[in-house]
Protein backbone atom coordinates (compact mmCIF):
# COMPACT_ATOMS: atom_id res chain seq x y z
CA UNK A 1 0.00 0.00 0.00
CA UNK A 2 1.64 3.16 -1.11
CA UNK A 3 -1.06 5.45 0.14
CA UNK A 4 0.10 6.75 3.47
CA UNK A 5 -3.31 6.25 5.00
CA UNK A 6 -4.94 2.90 5.03
CA UNK A 7 -8.66 2.97 5.53
CA UNK A 8 -9.78 0.32 7.97
CA UNK A 9 -13.20 -0.18 6.44
CA UNK A 10 -11.73 -2.40 3.73
CA UNK A 11 -12.62 -6.12 3.72
CA UNK A 12 -11.11 -8.13 6.61
CA UNK A 13 -8.31 -10.54 5.88
CA UNK A 14 -10.52 -13.58 6.42
CA UNK A 15 -14.18 -13.73 5.61
CA UNK A 16 -16.45 -13.85 8.63
CA UNK A 17 -18.06 -17.17 9.47
CA UNK A 18 -21.08 -17.11 11.75
CA UNK A 19 -20.60 -19.12 14.94
CA UNK A 20 -23.52 -21.44 14.19
CA UNK A 21 -22.05 -22.33 10.78
CA UNK A 22 -18.84 -23.60 12.38
CA UNK A 23 -20.04 -27.05 13.40
CA UNK A 24 -22.21 -29.95 12.28
CA UNK A 25 -25.62 -30.82 13.71
CA UNK A 26 -25.76 -33.48 16.42
CA UNK A 27 -27.28 -36.15 14.15
CA UNK A 28 -24.67 -35.79 11.41
CA UNK A 29 -21.87 -35.74 13.98
CA UNK A 30 -23.08 -39.05 15.45
CA UNK A 31 -23.23 -40.69 12.01
CA UNK A 32 -19.66 -39.57 11.24
CA UNK A 33 -18.51 -40.76 14.65
CA UNK A 34 -20.16 -44.15 14.21
CA UNK A 35 -18.47 -44.54 10.82
CA UNK A 36 -15.09 -43.68 12.36
CA UNK A 37 -15.58 -46.20 15.19
CA UNK A 38 -16.81 -49.12 13.07
CA UNK A 39 -14.70 -48.76 9.91
CA UNK A 40 -11.36 -50.14 11.20
CA UNK A 41 -12.93 -53.52 12.05
CA UNK A 42 -13.39 -54.29 8.38
CA UNK A 43 -10.13 -53.08 6.84
CA UNK A 44 -6.44 -54.06 6.68
CA UNK A 45 -3.75 -52.72 8.97
CA UNK A 46 -2.30 -50.38 6.37
CA UNK A 47 -5.64 -48.68 5.85
CA UNK A 48 -6.04 -48.38 9.62
CA UNK A 49 -2.66 -46.65 9.66
CA UNK A 50 -3.87 -44.25 6.96
CA UNK A 51 -7.02 -43.55 8.94
CA UNK A 52 -4.87 -42.78 11.97
CA UNK A 53 -2.90 -40.29 9.89
CA UNK A 54 -6.20 -38.89 8.68
CA UNK A 55 -7.19 -38.10 12.26
CA UNK A 56 -3.75 -36.73 13.09
CA UNK A 57 -3.62 -34.35 10.13
CA UNK A 58 -7.26 -33.56 10.87
CA UNK A 59 -6.17 -32.33 14.30
CA UNK A 60 -3.39 -30.23 12.78
CA UNK A 61 -5.79 -28.68 10.25
CA UNK A 62 -8.30 -28.08 13.04
CA UNK A 63 -5.61 -26.22 14.97
CA UNK A 64 -4.90 -23.99 11.99
CA UNK A 65 -8.62 -23.50 11.55
CA UNK A 66 -8.95 -22.18 15.09
CA UNK A 67 -6.14 -19.74 14.40
CA UNK A 68 -7.28 -18.55 10.97
CA UNK A 69 -11.01 -19.18 10.95
CA UNK A 70 -11.35 -18.20 14.59
CA UNK A 71 -9.00 -15.31 15.21
CA UNK A 72 -8.23 -14.31 11.61
CA UNK A 73 -4.44 -14.77 11.79
CA UNK A 74 -2.42 -16.63 9.16
CA UNK A 75 0.16 -19.24 9.61
CA UNK A 76 2.26 -20.88 6.94
CA UNK A 77 4.44 -22.24 9.74
CA UNK A 78 2.31 -24.98 11.28
CA UNK A 79 4.90 -27.57 10.23
CA UNK A 80 7.30 -25.99 12.73
CA UNK A 81 4.90 -26.54 15.63
CA UNK A 82 4.12 -30.03 14.36
CA UNK A 83 7.85 -30.78 14.27
CA UNK A 84 8.41 -29.49 17.80
CA UNK A 85 5.56 -31.67 19.07
CA UNK A 86 6.86 -34.72 17.23
CA UNK A 87 10.40 -34.24 18.52
CA UNK A 88 9.22 -33.61 22.09
CA UNK A 89 7.32 -36.89 22.12
CA UNK A 90 10.08 -38.83 20.40
CA UNK A 91 12.84 -37.52 22.67
CA UNK A 92 10.83 -38.15 25.84
CA UNK A 93 10.00 -41.69 24.74
CA UNK A 94 13.45 -42.67 23.54
CA UNK A 95 15.73 -40.81 25.94
CA UNK A 96 13.58 -40.63 29.08
CA UNK A 97 11.66 -43.89 28.51
CA UNK A 98 8.44 -42.12 29.23
CA UNK A 99 5.04 -43.65 28.47
CA UNK A 100 3.83 -42.54 25.03
CA UNK A 101 0.48 -41.29 26.36
CA UNK A 102 2.19 -39.06 28.91
CA UNK A 103 4.42 -37.44 26.30
CA UNK A 104 1.45 -35.99 24.43
CA UNK A 105 0.32 -33.46 27.04
CA UNK A 106 3.95 -32.42 27.45
CA UNK A 107 4.30 -31.98 23.68
CA UNK A 108 1.11 -29.90 23.80
CA UNK A 109 2.41 -27.70 26.61
CA UNK A 110 5.84 -27.23 25.01
CA UNK A 111 4.20 -26.22 21.74
CA UNK A 112 1.73 -23.97 23.50
CA UNK A 113 4.65 -22.13 25.06
CA UNK A 114 6.53 -22.03 21.74
CA UNK A 115 3.47 -20.76 19.89
CA UNK A 116 2.68 -18.23 22.58
CA UNK A 117 6.24 -16.89 22.48
CA UNK A 118 6.25 -16.80 18.67
CA UNK A 119 2.88 -15.07 18.81
CA UNK A 120 4.38 -12.26 20.90
CA UNK A 121 6.49 -10.69 18.14
CA UNK A 122 3.92 -11.81 15.58
CA UNK A 123 1.38 -9.67 17.42
CA UNK A 124 2.60 -6.63 15.63
CA UNK A 125 2.14 -8.28 12.28
CA UNK A 126 -1.01 -8.84 10.34
CA UNK A 127 -2.02 -10.32 7.02
CA UNK A 128 0.87 -10.77 4.61
CA UNK A 129 3.54 -9.91 7.18
CA UNK A 130 2.37 -12.67 9.47
CA UNK A 131 2.25 -15.08 6.55
CA UNK A 132 5.84 -14.05 5.75
CA UNK A 133 7.16 -14.51 9.30
CA UNK A 134 5.56 -17.93 9.66
CA UNK A 135 6.74 -18.92 6.15
CA UNK A 136 10.29 -18.08 7.23
CA UNK A 137 9.80 -20.09 10.43
CA UNK A 138 8.69 -23.15 8.48
CA UNK A 139 11.64 -22.98 6.06
CA UNK A 140 14.11 -22.49 8.89
CA UNK A 141 12.80 -25.34 11.07
CA UNK A 142 14.51 -28.33 9.38
CA UNK A 143 17.88 -26.54 9.62
CA UNK A 144 17.30 -25.81 13.31
CA UNK A 145 16.52 -29.47 13.95
CA UNK A 146 19.70 -30.57 12.15
CA UNK A 147 21.82 -28.33 14.34
CA UNK A 148 24.92 -30.03 15.74
CA UNK A 149 24.21 -28.48 19.13
CA UNK A 150 21.03 -30.56 19.63
CA UNK A 151 22.34 -33.63 17.84
CA UNK A 152 22.73 -35.66 21.01
CA UNK A 153 18.95 -35.52 21.55
CA UNK A 154 17.56 -35.14 18.06
CA UNK A 155 19.83 -37.56 16.25
CA UNK A 156 20.71 -34.84 13.72
CA UNK A 157 20.02 -35.60 10.07
CA UNK A 158 19.41 -39.28 10.90
CA UNK A 159 16.44 -38.53 13.12
CA UNK A 160 15.07 -40.82 15.81
CA UNK A 161 13.28 -44.14 15.64
CA UNK A 162 10.26 -44.44 17.91
CA UNK A 163 8.85 -47.76 19.15
CA UNK A 164 5.18 -48.35 18.49
CA UNK A 165 3.16 -49.05 21.64
CA UNK A 166 1.27 -52.33 22.16
CA UNK A 167 -2.37 -52.44 23.18
CA UNK A 168 -2.60 -52.28 26.97
CA UNK A 169 -4.62 -54.44 29.45
CA UNK A 170 -3.95 -57.55 27.35
CA UNK A 171 -6.43 -56.44 24.70
CA UNK A 172 -6.41 -58.65 21.61
CA UNK A 173 -5.83 -55.86 19.13
CA UNK A 174 -3.13 -55.07 16.60
CA UNK A 175 -0.80 -52.16 17.38
CA UNK A 176 -2.26 -50.18 14.49
CA UNK A 177 -5.82 -50.65 15.63
CA UNK A 178 -5.02 -49.74 19.22
CA UNK A 179 -3.23 -46.60 18.07
CA UNK A 180 -6.19 -45.72 15.88
CA UNK A 181 -8.69 -45.87 18.72
CA UNK A 182 -6.26 -44.07 21.01
CA UNK A 183 -5.97 -41.27 18.42
CA UNK A 184 -9.72 -41.25 17.87
CA UNK A 185 -10.44 -40.67 21.56
CA UNK A 186 -7.92 -37.83 21.73
CA UNK A 187 -9.26 -36.28 18.51
CA UNK A 188 -12.85 -36.35 19.76
CA UNK A 189 -11.75 -34.80 23.03
CA UNK A 190 -9.88 -32.00 21.26
CA UNK A 191 -12.70 -31.47 18.75
CA UNK A 192 -15.30 -31.01 21.51
CA UNK A 193 -12.92 -28.79 23.47
CA UNK A 194 -12.32 -26.65 20.36
CA UNK A 195 -16.03 -26.20 19.72
CA UNK A 196 -16.54 -25.19 23.32
CA UNK A 197 -13.59 -22.83 23.11
CA UNK A 198 -15.06 -21.07 20.07
CA UNK A 199 -18.46 -20.83 21.75
CA UNK A 200 -17.02 -19.40 24.93
CA UNK A 201 -16.13 -15.85 25.87
CA UNK A 202 -12.62 -16.37 24.48
CA UNK A 203 -14.04 -17.67 21.21
CA UNK A 204 -16.23 -14.60 20.84
CA UNK A 205 -13.15 -12.47 21.50
CA UNK A 206 -11.25 -14.34 18.75
CA UNK A 207 -14.06 -13.74 16.28
CA UNK A 208 -14.40 -10.09 17.21
CA UNK A 209 -10.69 -9.63 16.51
CA UNK A 210 -11.03 -11.48 13.21
CA UNK A 211 -13.87 -9.28 12.02
CA UNK A 212 -12.59 -5.92 13.18
CA UNK A 213 -9.64 -5.53 15.44
CA UNK A 214 -10.21 -1.89 16.29
CA UNK A 215 -13.88 -2.40 17.09
CA UNK A 216 -12.93 -5.39 19.25
CA UNK A 217 -10.45 -3.38 21.26
CA UNK A 218 -13.02 -0.62 21.65
CA UNK A 219 -15.40 -3.21 23.14
CA UNK A 220 -12.80 -4.07 25.75
CA UNK A 221 -11.29 -7.19 24.22
CA UNK A 222 -7.64 -7.51 25.16
CA UNK A 223 -6.43 -7.87 21.58
CA UNK A 224 -2.81 -8.67 22.40
CA UNK A 225 -3.72 -11.37 24.90
CA UNK A 226 -6.27 -13.12 22.71
CA UNK A 227 -4.14 -13.03 19.58
CA UNK A 228 -1.19 -14.66 21.30
CA UNK A 229 -3.55 -17.06 23.06
CA UNK A 230 -4.98 -18.16 19.72
CA UNK A 231 -1.43 -18.79 18.50
CA UNK A 232 -0.65 -20.74 21.65
CA UNK A 233 -3.77 -22.92 21.49
CA UNK A 234 -3.28 -23.60 17.82
CA UNK A 235 0.38 -24.52 18.32
CA UNK A 236 -0.52 -26.68 21.33
CA UNK A 237 -3.04 -28.75 19.38
CA UNK A 238 -0.63 -29.00 16.46
CA UNK A 239 2.00 -30.22 18.93
CA UNK A 240 -0.26 -33.01 20.18
CA UNK A 241 -0.94 -33.96 16.57
CA UNK A 242 2.82 -33.94 15.91
CA UNK A 243 3.44 -36.19 18.91
CA UNK A 244 0.77 -38.63 17.74
CA UNK A 245 2.25 -38.47 14.24
CA UNK A 246 5.70 -39.40 15.56
CA UNK A 247 4.24 -42.43 17.38
CA UNK A 248 2.21 -43.54 14.36
CA UNK A 249 5.03 -43.15 11.81
CA UNK A 250 7.61 -44.50 14.33
CA UNK A 251 10.20 -42.08 13.04
CA UNK A 252 11.11 -38.42 13.23
CA UNK A 253 13.62 -36.67 10.94
CA UNK A 254 14.14 -33.01 10.03
CA UNK A 255 13.22 -33.52 6.39
CA UNK A 256 9.78 -34.82 7.34
CA UNK A 257 8.78 -31.34 8.51
CA UNK A 258 9.59 -29.03 5.61
CA UNK A 259 7.60 -26.13 4.21
CA UNK A 260 5.67 -28.68 2.15
CA UNK A 261 3.96 -29.97 5.28
CA UNK A 262 2.98 -26.43 6.24
CA UNK A 263 1.62 -25.87 2.74
CA UNK A 264 -0.33 -29.13 2.91
CA UNK A 265 -1.94 -28.15 6.21
CA UNK A 266 -2.80 -24.72 4.87
CA UNK A 267 -4.26 -26.34 1.78
CA UNK A 268 -6.27 -28.74 3.94
CA UNK A 269 -7.79 -25.81 5.75
CA UNK A 270 -8.74 -23.97 2.56
CA UNK A 271 -10.22 -27.11 1.00
CA UNK A 272 -12.13 -28.02 4.13
CA UNK A 273 -13.54 -24.53 4.44
CA UNK A 274 -11.97 -21.81 6.58
CA UNK A 275 -13.72 -21.60 9.91
CA UNK A 276 -15.73 -24.83 9.50
CA UNK A 277 -14.29 -27.24 12.04
CA UNK A 278 -15.69 -30.53 10.61
CA UNK A 279 -14.11 -29.50 7.30
CA UNK A 280 -10.74 -30.21 8.92
CA UNK A 281 -11.38 -33.92 8.41
CA UNK A 282 -12.29 -33.37 4.76
CA UNK A 283 -9.18 -31.26 4.27
CA UNK A 284 -7.04 -33.87 5.94
CA UNK A 285 -8.45 -36.64 3.73
CA UNK A 286 -7.61 -34.42 0.77
CA UNK A 287 -3.97 -33.90 1.75
CA UNK A 288 -3.44 -37.59 2.50
CA UNK A 289 -5.10 -39.26 -0.46
CA UNK A 290 -4.61 -36.78 -3.32
CA UNK A 291 -0.77 -36.99 -3.27
CA UNK A 292 -1.01 -40.80 -3.26
CA UNK A 293 -3.15 -40.76 -6.38
CA UNK A 294 -1.02 -38.08 -8.05
CA UNK A 295 2.29 -39.84 -7.31
CA UNK A 296 0.73 -42.98 -8.74
CA UNK A 297 0.35 -41.21 -12.08
CA UNK A 298 3.77 -39.59 -12.14
CA UNK A 299 6.45 -38.93 -9.55
CA UNK A 300 6.65 -35.34 -8.37
CA UNK A 301 3.21 -34.53 -9.70
CA UNK A 302 1.55 -33.97 -6.32
CA UNK A 303 2.67 -30.34 -6.03
CA UNK A 304 1.10 -29.51 -9.37
CA UNK A 305 -2.14 -31.36 -8.57
CA UNK A 306 -2.31 -29.59 -5.20
CA UNK A 307 -1.77 -26.23 -6.87
CA UNK A 308 -4.31 -26.74 -9.62
CA UNK A 309 -6.95 -28.03 -7.20
CA UNK A 310 -6.27 -25.15 -4.84
CA UNK A 311 -6.91 -22.68 -7.67
CA UNK A 312 -10.11 -24.54 -8.57
CA UNK A 313 -11.28 -24.31 -4.96
CA UNK A 314 -10.43 -20.61 -4.77
CA UNK A 315 -12.30 -19.79 -7.97
CA UNK A 316 -15.24 -22.21 -7.83
CA UNK A 317 -15.98 -22.95 -4.17
CA UNK A 318 -14.28 -20.28 -2.08
CA UNK A 319 -15.80 -21.69 1.11
CA UNK A 320 -14.45 -25.16 0.46
CA UNK A 321 -16.19 -28.27 1.72
CA UNK A 322 -18.61 -26.20 3.82
CA UNK A 323 -20.11 -24.78 0.65
CA UNK A 324 -20.38 -28.23 -0.94
CA UNK A 325 -22.03 -29.59 2.20
CA UNK A 326 -24.55 -26.75 2.26
CA UNK A 327 -25.49 -27.16 -1.38
CA UNK A 328 -25.88 -30.90 -0.83
CA UNK A 329 -28.08 -30.25 2.18
CA UNK A 330 -30.33 -27.89 0.18
CA UNK A 331 -30.64 -30.36 -2.70
CA UNK A 332 -31.47 -33.13 -0.27
CA UNK A 333 -34.11 -30.92 1.38
CA UNK A 334 -35.73 -30.23 -2.01
CA UNK A 335 -35.78 -33.92 -2.93
CA UNK A 336 -37.42 -34.89 0.34
CA UNK A 337 -40.14 -32.23 -0.12
CA UNK A 338 -41.01 -33.59 -3.55
Amino acid at each position, binding site marked *: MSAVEDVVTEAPAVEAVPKRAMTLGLGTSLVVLAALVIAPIFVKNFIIFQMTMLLIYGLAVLALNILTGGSGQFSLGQSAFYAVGAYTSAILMEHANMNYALTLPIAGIVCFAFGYLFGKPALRLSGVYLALATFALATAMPQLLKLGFFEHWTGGVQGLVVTKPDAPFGLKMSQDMWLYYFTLVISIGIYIASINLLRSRSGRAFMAIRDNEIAASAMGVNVALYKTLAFGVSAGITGVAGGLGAIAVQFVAPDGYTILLAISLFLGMVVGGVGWLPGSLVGSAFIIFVPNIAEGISKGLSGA*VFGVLLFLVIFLVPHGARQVAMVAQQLLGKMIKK
Partner: protein
Amino acid sequence: MELFTNQVLAGIATGAIYACMALAVVMIYQAIDHLNFAQGEMAMFSTFLSWQMMQWGVPYWGAFVLTLILSFAGGILIERLLFKPLAKAPVLTNVAGFIALYGIINSFAGLIWDFTIKQYPTPFGSSPFLGSQLISTHQAGMIGVTVLLLILLFIFFQYTRIGLAMRAAAALPESARLVGINTSWMIALGWGMAAAIGSIAGMLIAPVVFLEPNMMLGVLIYGFAAAVLGGLTSPLGAVIGGFLVGVFENLAGTYIPGVGNELKLPIALALIITVLVFKPAGLFGRPIVKRV
Protein backbone atom coordinates in the same frame (compact mmCIF):
# COMPACT_ATOMS: atom_id res chain seq x y z
CA MET B 1 41.86 -7.74 7.64
CA GLU B 2 42.10 -9.49 4.31
CA LEU B 3 39.56 -12.05 5.51
CA PHE B 4 37.23 -9.21 6.46
CA THR B 5 37.52 -7.44 3.10
CA ASN B 6 37.13 -10.73 1.34
CA GLN B 7 33.94 -11.58 3.23
CA VAL B 8 32.47 -8.11 2.72
CA LEU B 9 33.08 -8.29 -1.03
CA ALA B 10 31.63 -11.81 -1.25
CA GLY B 11 28.68 -10.56 0.78
CA ILE B 12 28.11 -7.71 -1.64
CA ALA B 13 28.17 -10.20 -4.51
CA THR B 14 25.48 -12.48 -3.04
CA GLY B 15 23.74 -9.36 -1.76
CA ALA B 16 23.35 -8.34 -5.40
CA ILE B 17 21.21 -11.43 -5.96
CA TYR B 18 19.15 -10.79 -2.83
CA ALA B 19 18.72 -7.22 -4.05
CA CYS B 20 17.30 -8.49 -7.36
CA MET B 21 14.87 -10.84 -5.59
CA ALA B 22 13.87 -8.12 -3.14
CA LEU B 23 13.30 -5.76 -6.04
CA ALA B 24 11.05 -8.30 -7.74
CA VAL B 25 9.09 -8.84 -4.52
CA VAL B 26 8.71 -5.10 -4.02
CA MET B 27 7.54 -4.56 -7.62
CA ILE B 28 4.60 -6.89 -7.03
CA TYR B 29 3.98 -5.64 -3.51
CA GLN B 30 3.75 -2.08 -4.84
CA ALA B 31 1.27 -3.16 -7.49
CA ILE B 32 -1.11 -5.39 -5.54
CA ASP B 33 -0.15 -5.21 -1.84
CA HIS B 34 0.74 -8.88 -1.63
CA LEU B 35 3.97 -10.78 -1.16
CA ASN B 36 4.62 -13.16 -4.01
CA PHE B 37 5.61 -16.42 -2.34
CA ALA B 38 6.09 -17.95 -5.78
CA GLN B 39 8.68 -15.36 -6.86
CA GLY B 40 11.59 -17.72 -6.24
CA GLU B 41 9.93 -20.54 -8.16
CA MET B 42 9.18 -18.24 -11.10
CA ALA B 43 12.87 -17.27 -11.17
CA MET B 44 13.89 -20.93 -10.93
CA PHE B 45 11.65 -21.85 -13.86
CA SER B 46 13.11 -19.02 -15.96
CA THR B 47 16.61 -20.22 -15.16
CA PHE B 48 15.68 -23.73 -16.30
CA LEU B 49 14.30 -22.25 -19.53
CA SER B 50 17.62 -20.51 -20.24
CA TRP B 51 19.51 -23.72 -19.39
CA GLN B 52 17.32 -25.67 -21.81
CA MET B 53 17.98 -23.13 -24.57
CA MET B 54 21.73 -23.43 -23.97
CA GLN B 55 21.40 -27.22 -24.19
CA TRP B 56 19.82 -26.67 -27.60
CA GLY B 57 22.85 -24.67 -28.66
CA VAL B 58 21.76 -21.06 -28.14
CA PRO B 59 24.74 -18.92 -26.98
CA TYR B 60 24.63 -17.59 -23.39
CA TRP B 61 23.63 -14.02 -24.06
CA GLY B 62 21.05 -15.05 -26.64
CA ALA B 63 19.46 -17.39 -24.09
CA PHE B 64 19.70 -14.62 -21.49
CA VAL B 65 17.74 -12.14 -23.59
CA LEU B 66 15.20 -14.72 -24.78
CA THR B 67 14.60 -15.80 -21.17
CA LEU B 68 14.04 -12.21 -20.13
CA ILE B 69 11.40 -11.80 -22.83
CA LEU B 70 9.73 -15.12 -22.03
CA SER B 71 9.70 -14.40 -18.28
CA PHE B 72 8.21 -10.98 -18.90
CA ALA B 73 5.43 -12.50 -20.98
CA GLY B 74 4.95 -15.31 -18.46
CA GLY B 75 4.60 -12.86 -15.59
CA ILE B 76 1.93 -10.91 -17.46
CA LEU B 77 0.14 -14.13 -18.36
CA ILE B 78 0.04 -15.32 -14.74
CA GLU B 79 -1.35 -11.99 -13.61
CA ARG B 80 -4.03 -11.85 -16.31
CA LEU B 81 -5.17 -15.45 -15.87
CA LEU B 82 -4.86 -16.11 -12.16
CA PHE B 83 -4.47 -13.01 -10.05
CA LYS B 84 -6.54 -10.37 -11.78
CA PRO B 85 -9.78 -12.17 -10.79
CA LEU B 86 -8.54 -12.27 -7.18
CA ALA B 87 -7.95 -8.53 -6.92
CA LYS B 88 -10.91 -7.96 -4.60
CA ALA B 89 -10.64 -11.25 -2.69
CA PRO B 90 -9.59 -11.45 1.00
CA VAL B 91 -5.87 -11.68 1.84
CA LEU B 92 -6.27 -15.36 2.71
CA THR B 93 -7.42 -16.23 -0.80
CA ASN B 94 -4.49 -14.41 -2.32
CA VAL B 95 -1.99 -16.14 -0.05
CA ALA B 96 -3.57 -19.46 -1.04
CA GLY B 97 -3.19 -18.47 -4.70
CA PHE B 98 0.53 -17.75 -4.32
CA ILE B 99 1.05 -21.00 -2.46
CA ALA B 100 -0.78 -22.86 -5.23
CA LEU B 101 1.42 -21.21 -7.85
CA TYR B 102 4.50 -22.19 -5.84
CA GLY B 103 3.39 -25.83 -5.83
CA ILE B 104 2.54 -25.89 -9.51
CA ILE B 105 5.79 -24.34 -10.76
CA ASN B 106 8.02 -26.34 -8.43
CA SER B 107 6.33 -29.59 -9.37
CA PHE B 108 6.36 -28.94 -13.10
CA ALA B 109 10.04 -28.00 -13.08
CA GLY B 110 10.71 -31.31 -11.35
CA LEU B 111 8.59 -33.18 -13.88
CA ILE B 112 10.23 -31.61 -16.92
CA TRP B 113 13.86 -31.40 -15.81
CA ASP B 114 13.87 -33.84 -12.83
CA PHE B 115 15.39 -33.19 -9.42
CA THR B 116 19.06 -33.90 -10.13
CA ILE B 117 21.53 -31.06 -9.60
CA LYS B 118 22.83 -29.47 -12.80
CA GLN B 119 25.85 -27.33 -13.61
CA TYR B 120 25.06 -23.86 -14.91
CA PRO B 121 27.59 -21.88 -16.95
CA THR B 122 28.81 -18.41 -16.13
CA PRO B 123 29.64 -15.93 -18.88
CA PHE B 124 32.18 -14.16 -16.68
CA GLY B 125 34.46 -17.07 -15.85
CA SER B 126 35.65 -17.75 -12.32
CA SER B 127 39.24 -16.51 -12.42
CA PRO B 128 40.35 -13.82 -9.94
CA PHE B 129 38.99 -10.39 -10.85
CA LEU B 130 41.66 -7.92 -12.11
CA GLY B 131 44.35 -10.11 -10.66
CA SER B 132 43.20 -9.60 -7.06
CA GLN B 133 42.49 -12.59 -4.85
CA LEU B 134 39.55 -10.89 -3.17
CA ILE B 135 36.78 -11.50 -5.64
CA SER B 136 36.15 -13.70 -8.65
CA THR B 137 35.07 -12.42 -12.04
CA HIS B 138 31.68 -14.07 -11.64
CA GLN B 139 31.08 -12.24 -8.37
CA ALA B 140 32.16 -8.98 -9.98
CA GLY B 141 29.82 -9.78 -12.86
CA MET B 142 26.90 -10.31 -10.46
CA ILE B 143 27.50 -6.93 -8.88
CA GLY B 144 27.97 -5.27 -12.28
CA VAL B 145 24.76 -6.66 -13.77
CA THR B 146 22.75 -5.69 -10.70
CA VAL B 147 24.07 -2.13 -10.69
CA LEU B 148 23.36 -1.81 -14.42
CA LEU B 149 19.84 -3.13 -13.84
CA LEU B 150 19.26 -0.58 -11.10
CA ILE B 151 20.39 2.30 -13.27
CA LEU B 152 18.10 1.16 -16.09
CA LEU B 153 15.15 0.81 -13.71
CA PHE B 154 15.84 4.22 -12.23
CA ILE B 155 15.85 5.80 -15.69
CA PHE B 156 12.69 3.89 -16.60
CA PHE B 157 10.71 5.02 -13.56
CA GLN B 158 12.08 8.56 -13.46
CA TYR B 159 12.25 9.60 -17.10
CA THR B 160 9.73 7.65 -19.16
CA ARG B 161 5.99 8.24 -19.48
CA ILE B 162 5.11 4.66 -18.77
CA GLY B 163 7.35 4.57 -15.71
CA LEU B 164 5.57 7.65 -14.42
CA ALA B 165 2.21 6.02 -15.11
CA MET B 166 3.26 2.92 -13.16
CA ARG B 167 4.34 5.01 -10.20
CA ALA B 168 1.04 6.89 -10.31
CA ALA B 169 -0.98 3.67 -10.47
CA ALA B 170 0.87 2.32 -7.45
CA ALA B 171 0.62 5.49 -5.39
CA LEU B 172 -2.96 6.59 -5.98
CA PRO B 173 -4.85 4.13 -8.19
CA GLU B 174 -8.11 6.07 -8.27
CA SER B 175 -6.56 9.40 -9.22
CA ALA B 176 -4.43 7.60 -11.78
CA ARG B 177 -7.54 6.11 -13.36
CA LEU B 178 -9.11 9.57 -13.52
CA VAL B 179 -6.23 10.95 -15.56
CA GLY B 180 -6.60 8.10 -18.02
CA ILE B 181 -4.02 5.56 -16.87
CA ASN B 182 -5.01 1.95 -17.39
CA THR B 183 -4.11 0.83 -13.84
CA SER B 184 -5.05 -2.78 -14.49
CA TRP B 185 -2.43 -3.08 -17.22
CA MET B 186 0.11 -1.23 -15.09
CA ILE B 187 -0.27 -4.05 -12.55
CA ALA B 188 0.27 -6.65 -15.27
CA LEU B 189 3.34 -4.73 -16.40
CA GLY B 190 4.62 -4.76 -12.82
CA TRP B 191 4.22 -8.55 -12.75
CA GLY B 192 6.06 -8.91 -16.04
CA MET B 193 8.96 -6.76 -14.88
CA ALA B 194 9.12 -8.59 -11.54
CA ALA B 195 9.30 -11.93 -13.37
CA ALA B 196 12.07 -10.62 -15.64
CA ILE B 197 14.10 -9.19 -12.73
CA GLY B 198 13.66 -12.45 -10.84
CA SER B 199 14.93 -14.41 -13.83
CA ILE B 200 18.10 -12.30 -13.87
CA ALA B 201 18.63 -13.15 -10.21
CA GLY B 202 18.09 -16.83 -10.97
CA MET B 203 20.51 -16.91 -13.90
CA LEU B 204 23.20 -15.10 -11.92
CA ILE B 205 22.96 -17.25 -8.78
CA ALA B 206 22.58 -20.59 -10.60
CA PRO B 207 26.37 -21.07 -11.16
CA VAL B 208 26.84 -20.64 -7.39
CA VAL B 209 24.01 -22.74 -5.91
CA PHE B 210 23.64 -25.10 -8.92
CA LEU B 211 20.46 -25.63 -10.85
CA GLU B 212 17.66 -27.69 -9.27
CA PRO B 213 13.97 -27.09 -8.57
CA ASN B 214 14.47 -26.08 -4.92
CA MET B 215 17.44 -23.80 -5.51
CA MET B 216 15.58 -20.53 -4.95
CA LEU B 217 13.94 -21.25 -1.59
CA GLY B 218 16.83 -19.94 0.49
CA VAL B 219 17.43 -17.06 -1.90
CA LEU B 220 13.75 -16.11 -1.73
CA ILE B 221 13.77 -16.04 2.08
CA TYR B 222 16.83 -13.78 1.94
CA GLY B 223 15.10 -11.68 -0.69
CA PHE B 224 12.12 -11.30 1.64
CA ALA B 225 14.46 -10.40 4.50
CA ALA B 226 16.10 -7.78 2.28
CA ALA B 227 12.77 -6.36 1.13
CA VAL B 228 11.48 -6.17 4.70
CA LEU B 229 14.73 -4.60 5.93
CA GLY B 230 14.70 -1.94 3.23
CA GLY B 231 10.98 -1.38 3.46
CA LEU B 232 8.41 -3.03 1.24
CA THR B 233 7.29 0.29 -0.18
CA SER B 234 10.71 1.40 -1.37
CA PRO B 235 12.55 -0.14 -4.37
CA LEU B 236 15.77 1.67 -3.47
CA GLY B 237 15.43 0.43 0.09
CA ALA B 238 14.98 -3.13 -1.16
CA VAL B 239 18.27 -2.93 -3.06
CA ILE B 240 20.19 -1.45 -0.14
CA GLY B 241 18.54 -4.05 2.09
CA GLY B 242 19.75 -6.76 -0.29
CA PHE B 243 23.38 -5.66 -0.07
CA LEU B 244 23.17 -5.22 3.72
CA VAL B 245 21.66 -8.68 4.19
CA GLY B 246 24.33 -10.25 1.95
CA VAL B 247 27.17 -8.65 3.90
CA PHE B 248 25.51 -9.42 7.24
CA GLU B 249 25.03 -13.07 6.29
CA ASN B 250 28.68 -13.51 5.32
CA LEU B 251 30.09 -11.69 8.34
CA ALA B 252 27.84 -13.59 10.75
CA GLY B 253 28.92 -16.87 9.12
CA THR B 254 32.61 -15.95 9.51
CA TYR B 255 32.82 -14.28 12.90
CA ILE B 256 30.03 -15.69 15.09
CA PRO B 257 31.08 -19.17 16.21
CA GLY B 258 28.60 -21.94 15.50
CA VAL B 259 26.94 -20.07 12.65
CA GLY B 260 28.00 -21.96 9.59
CA ASN B 261 26.20 -22.81 6.45
CA GLU B 262 23.70 -24.86 8.43
CA LEU B 263 22.25 -21.79 10.14
CA LYS B 264 21.73 -19.75 6.97
CA LEU B 265 17.93 -19.87 7.00
CA PRO B 266 17.46 -19.35 10.76
CA ILE B 267 19.55 -16.16 10.43
CA ALA B 268 17.19 -14.89 7.75
CA LEU B 269 14.23 -15.79 9.96
CA ALA B 270 15.72 -13.95 12.93
CA LEU B 271 16.43 -10.95 10.71
CA ILE B 272 12.90 -10.81 9.35
CA ILE B 273 11.30 -11.04 12.77
CA THR B 274 13.67 -8.52 14.33
CA VAL B 275 13.00 -5.94 11.62
CA LEU B 276 9.24 -6.52 11.64
CA VAL B 277 9.10 -6.13 15.41
CA PHE B 278 11.33 -3.09 15.83
CA LYS B 279 10.85 -1.23 12.58
CA PRO B 280 7.90 -2.70 10.66
CA ALA B 281 8.16 -0.12 7.88
CA GLY B 282 11.82 -1.00 7.25
CA LEU B 283 14.70 1.40 6.88
CA PHE B 284 13.33 3.36 3.95
CA GLY B 285 9.61 2.57 3.87
CA ARG B 286 6.87 4.94 4.81
CA PRO B 287 4.92 3.96 7.93
CA ILE B 288 1.25 3.34 7.21
CA VAL B 289 -1.23 5.22 9.35
CA LYS B 290 -4.52 3.48 9.94
CA ARG B 291 -7.59 5.70 9.76
CA VAL B 292 -10.63 4.55 11.71
